[in-house]
């Protein structure tokens, strides 16, 4: 282990990490944008719609991300009508190709995760919303999506970590993100241990950060359930009892 080398290459690795973070965040954001409407359609009673979306998720979840990435990066340029269209300026750029492939892939997985969450929303809650006269849109916005997202959150956190790790594939189409930078440095210095293990540690730190943030978010979204537990707490019982007796004193 050459510590001097690690210190020397760390700034370059951190630069690569910046691109990794950008790719991951953008893919997760676009993936979620794709997934929310698709998950709603996937759970809709229309079997044609549901089946079409199942086909999309099936294809993207059933093939390796590397194949999808290569199809978009190398394959799209082969079609004449894409080359002559305005989309070519986007599809020529490896960053956009990676972003499109990752977003579509992430969107497919997220659709299925959200579908699971939406299906797990207790039917009583939805019936109650109907009984209150809420319209379909209002029901989706206030009941189905928030409750479904909360139920899907643990699985979604895993998916975000998987997306972070999948972003390393961008290095195969010449993008200099964390893995790409590490590979380049290894090719120059031929000391794989120092460089790759430093990169691995940066990824690990990133994973911990994501897990931590989602853990907090989960706790934040489950606040109403924690309060229910507190009610049985003897201390709050006593406090409530004291409050009642105080108010009775004021009254008398």
């Amino acid at each position, binding site marked *: 282990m050459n510590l001097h080398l690690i210190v020397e290459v760390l700034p370059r690795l951190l630069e690569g990490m910046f691109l990794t973070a950008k790719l991951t965040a953008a893919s997760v954001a676009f993936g979620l944008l794709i997934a929310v409407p698709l998950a709603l359609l996937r759970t809709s009673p229309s079997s044609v719609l549901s089946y079409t979306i199942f086909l999309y998720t099936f294809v993207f979840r059933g*093939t390796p991300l590397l*194949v999808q990435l290569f*199809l978009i990066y190398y394959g799209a340029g082969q079609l004449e009508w894409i080359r002559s269209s305005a989309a070519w300026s986007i599809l020529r750029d490896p960053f956009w190709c990676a972003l499109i492939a990752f977003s579509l892939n992430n969107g497919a997985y997220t659709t299925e995760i959200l579908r699971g969450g939406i299906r797990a929303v207790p039917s009583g809650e939805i019936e109650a919303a109907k009984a209150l006269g809420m319209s379909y849109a209002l029901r989706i916005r206030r009941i189905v999506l928030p409750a479904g997202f909360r139920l899907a959150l643990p699985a979604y956190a895993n998916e975000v970590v998987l997306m972070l790790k999948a972003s*390393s*594939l961008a290095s195969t189409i010449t993008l200099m993100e964390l893995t790409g930078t590490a590979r380049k440095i290894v090719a120059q210095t031929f000391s794989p241990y120092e460089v790759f293990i430093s990169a691995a540690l940066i990824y690990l730190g990133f994973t911990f950060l994501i897990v931590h943030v989602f853990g907090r978010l989960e706790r934040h979204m489950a606040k109403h359930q924690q309060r229910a537990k507190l009610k049985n707490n003897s201390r709050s019982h006593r406090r409530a009892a004291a409050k009642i007796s105080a108010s009775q004193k004021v009254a008398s």
Partner: protein
Amino acid sequence: MTELQGFGDQIALGAFTTLRTALTSLALGIGVGLCGAAAKRSRVRIIRWLAGCYTTIVRGVPELLIILILYFGGTVALTTVFGRYVEVDAFAAGVFALTIVFGAYATEVFRAAIQAVPSGQIEAAQALGLSRFCVWCFVILPQMWRYALPGLGNLWLTLLKDTALISVVGLEDLMRKSSIAAGSTHDPLTFYSIAASLYLLFTSVSLVGLTWLERRADRGVRFAK
């Protein structure tokens, strides 16, 4: 496009390598996963800690990076050991990397499955005087299998797709054969589409097989109607 411009045999050969790599890693990975789950339930604290480190690290680092570390790192290590340049076989490095990754995820699946076995079963076995080894073989393993199957199935699908990553270090699998064909015919769209459909075929067949296995594992269980 007759005979895929002569690349049909190559693609078939690549598909065979992909399946061979995936199945070898599956068999070894299940072994690693069982050992990992046993280590996580160990009475010795340091063993539990080591198993925890293993699963946390491997699950937090990209598979591609693990493959690169083992391939290039392995080459450097073997070169220093033997004193001359030794190149690691891509198949061996790939299987090793995938086994380590699969083993880490399988450890968690098996650990959860073992926890799902009613503790009364294990206590009853202990009360009957079965040794720890017998409890494992005859009580825990047969029963936890049913709980582990859905998670293990998902891992198998991931493993099958992860084999494509080994093409980056030169394993002549489906992915690499397709990209060689795509490069020499200047027709990436066709060849990557073929690769995608073959992977899709493998995962579809796996899904059917897994459903059958799950139904078979459930045959002794009564469900509320």
